[in-house]
């Protein structure tokens, strides 16, 4: 009798340990639960199917960039130029689409051009040995300037005759699920596999955690960093493609503006360490959704417009504070 109850105790303790470990590995789940509860209290219908799929769809465009930002931040860097990359790629993407009238060519162009812009960042950072913050601050200004100059004649508009082609692809639904949501989920799964199942993923963590040690195990640190910037560039390009489909008109001065801040915020809320070495794609995925949920909460709670920023700031701080306290 004694023995069995002890055994149960031990078992329960082990279970408790495992659960604790699970939550300390996935702290963002806590923030997510908190936000979901708040949202449901404010609007009981919030988590119905439409809202959920709308939420996914709405988080997609910035969320896709946040996936790439996760890699960049884990590797110990940062990318402030993503918003400008979106502007530059989407502006020219409209031109490409109007000219070629081909979805596939446009998508290829966007991801390729995006990754070239990312590659430029990566080269300055590694070969030029300049901090990522300052490189991408400079290219943020430079990339946007280029498209603003090109776009002096006004916005880049998708031609009316080809418009429906891209809007059906981006804004359409398959089996009732919005394509934007599908694309976001698909890319999130792909990036998750990249980070958790491949050697490259391990290199990214290693480089961000101890660059010198990573170098001494034969990892080509420069190449790893450059690839992370190419990936975030390509994802920003895909985001630009989605933006074209969603907006059908791109204004150079403010397309993609502040996307970098939202992407970084998603990564941070998703539990990654800003100093590198730690973070998860799943966290960022939920982080991006959480940011969108906060927007929903602001609307549902009818916060006065000028106070939105205050409430949003407080919610973000609370969400992150809460997950830190729990993961002790």
């Amino acid at each position, binding site marked *: 009798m004694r023995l069995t109850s002890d055994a149960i105790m031990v078992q329960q303790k082990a279970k408790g340990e495992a659960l604790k470990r699970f939550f300390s590995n996935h702290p963002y789940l806590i923030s997510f639960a908190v936000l979901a509860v708040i949202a449901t209290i404010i609007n009981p219908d919030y988590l119905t199917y439409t809202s959920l799929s709308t939420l996914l769809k709405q988080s997609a465009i910035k969320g896709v960039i946040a996936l790439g930002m996760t890699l960049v931040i884990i590797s110990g860097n940062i990318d402030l130029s993503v918003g400008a990359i979106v502007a530059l790629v989407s502006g020219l993407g409209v031109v490409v689409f109007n000219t070629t009238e081909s979805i596939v060519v446009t998508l290829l162009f966007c991801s390729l051009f995006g990754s070239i812009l990312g590659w430029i960042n990566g080269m300055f950072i590694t070969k030029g040995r300049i901090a990522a913050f300052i490189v991408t601050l400079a290219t943020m200004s430079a990339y946007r300037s280029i498209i603003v100059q090109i776009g002096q004649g006004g916005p880049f508009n998708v031609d009316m005759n080809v418009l429906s082609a891209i809007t059906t692809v981006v804004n359409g639904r398959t089996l009732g699920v919005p394509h934007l949501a599908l694309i976001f989920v698909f890319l999130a799964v792909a990036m998750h596999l990249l980070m958790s199942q491949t*050697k*490259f993923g*391990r290199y990214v963590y290693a480089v*961000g955690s101890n660059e010198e040690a990573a170098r*001494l*195990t034969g990892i080509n640190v420069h190449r790893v960093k450059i690839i992370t910037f190419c990936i975030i560039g390509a994802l920003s390009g895909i985001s630009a493609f989605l933006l074209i489909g969603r907006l059908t008109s791109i204004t150079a001065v403010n397309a993609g503006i502040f996307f970098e801040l939202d992407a970084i915020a998603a990564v941070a809320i998703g539990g990654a360490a800003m100093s590198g*070495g730690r973070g998860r794609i799943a966290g960022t995925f939920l982080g991006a959704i959480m940011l969108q949920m906060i927007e929903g909460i602001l609307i549902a709670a009818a916060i006065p417009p000028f106070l939105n920023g205050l409430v949003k700031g407080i919610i973000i701080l609370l969400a992150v504070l809460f997950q830190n306290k729990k993961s002790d």
Partner: protein
Amino acid sequence: MRNIVKSFGATRALKGVDFTVTDAEVHGLLGENGAGKSTLMNILGGTYNQNSGDIIIDGKDCSTLDTNTSFSLGIRFIHQELNLVNDLMAYENLFLGREKTSQYGRLDKLAMIQASTAVFKRMNVDIDPLTEVRDLDTSQKQLVEIARALLFDCKLIIMDEPTTALTNKEISNLFDIIRSLKNEGVSVIYISHKMPELFEICDSYTVFRDGCFIQSGAIKDIDEHIATELLVGRKIDSDEVVKPANTNSSVMDINALSCKPYFRDVSFSLKKGEVLAITGLFGDGRGELAECLFGARHTTDGEILINGKVSKHRRIKDAIDASIAMIPRNRKERSIIPDMSIQDNLSMASFSNNGNSLFVRKPQERERFSRCQKNMNIKSGHPDNLITSLSGGNQQKVIFSRWLELDSDILILDNPTQGIDVGAKFQIYHLINQLSEQSKSCILFSSEFPEIYQVADRCLVMYMGQVNTILSREELTEMNVMYYATGSNLEVKNAINQ
């Protein structure tokens, strides 16, 4: 310290140990890797708080210590891993947190520099207090750590493996200082895995095993064999390792390799199945030589031939592709990936260098871990735990396994047994011999003569960035090594020339 208990989550690092140090004694603390030595010292130094148990210092209860109270009680702590601020100068590191100021809170730089110079002089080391710590060598960094403890008057110095990166000369300097401190009434707790050191300097000893107190007494009552048995808990045969004969075909030829200003005109050849030791004193350029052989530093002149062919050696990957592996010194800064698990740390070199597969195969990694854990006797919790949850010695074993897994033909071992306990050291020496039997070659960078003597076929002695001599196995005596490492032969030559 009485009945101290300390747990990290599920692991109980200390299961109620007692530990006593008296005035003016050098107390050796012995134990296998992971026995709990550093943990206990961290509690005494105020870095961690114990879960239960009492600390009594000079008859007063001091059970809740933090780093500052510990310091003000006159306790100095030289940590097992380096804890220096690389961006500050040596003297700034020495005084960090206890700066001298003149009026208006202005830093009294001159006084601090003078005091630093004095400490270095007392330690008989040549470090400019104005150099940035980043530019110091690993051994110099360890000396700065030691100097920091000697700077102010104190009552007790904890030295947690202070000599892992030091050369014999530096160690004997350190021992002179310890003796004079003892005469001034200062006590020292001395942790080391190097038995001869313990028997040379300690008055008394305490042995831990698995977080438990085993035995305590005067050092003169035991000898190396008894000590080893006590800490391992069983008999081990530390008989001399038998060297297998090696063939004559060379795998690696170094021709007039230079990396100015660190070393120049280094030439030697490494034979198949041979263990070549490279030794010297500080400033001989060995550290840089090891890096150059591994492609981690660009050479300025000369060439490296692998199996008779010139190797590019521009990048580390070139060296690894030429079947060279290297275990670097300074584990914390250059080997450990602190945010990754034990298992990933172990597999890291295999990821980057084995096969073309893009993916990580979990079962394979798990299997690799259990194999290595068994081979190297790594004491660890779950393989998914962070590497930082291991004791220093166990971390080193993981790093050792990391490189053995590559199955390279040439191994560069730069101070490979730093922090590894006696039992495991012999295991490693056996391992090196096994490698020789499999016709693999090793270059061992070490300044521990017993270690060199255990495994080396030949010993290359460097002096001031140049090869002074290569000693054969027959010529290999401690006397000889010292003679060439200090460059005495050259002085004689110079004298004759004049």
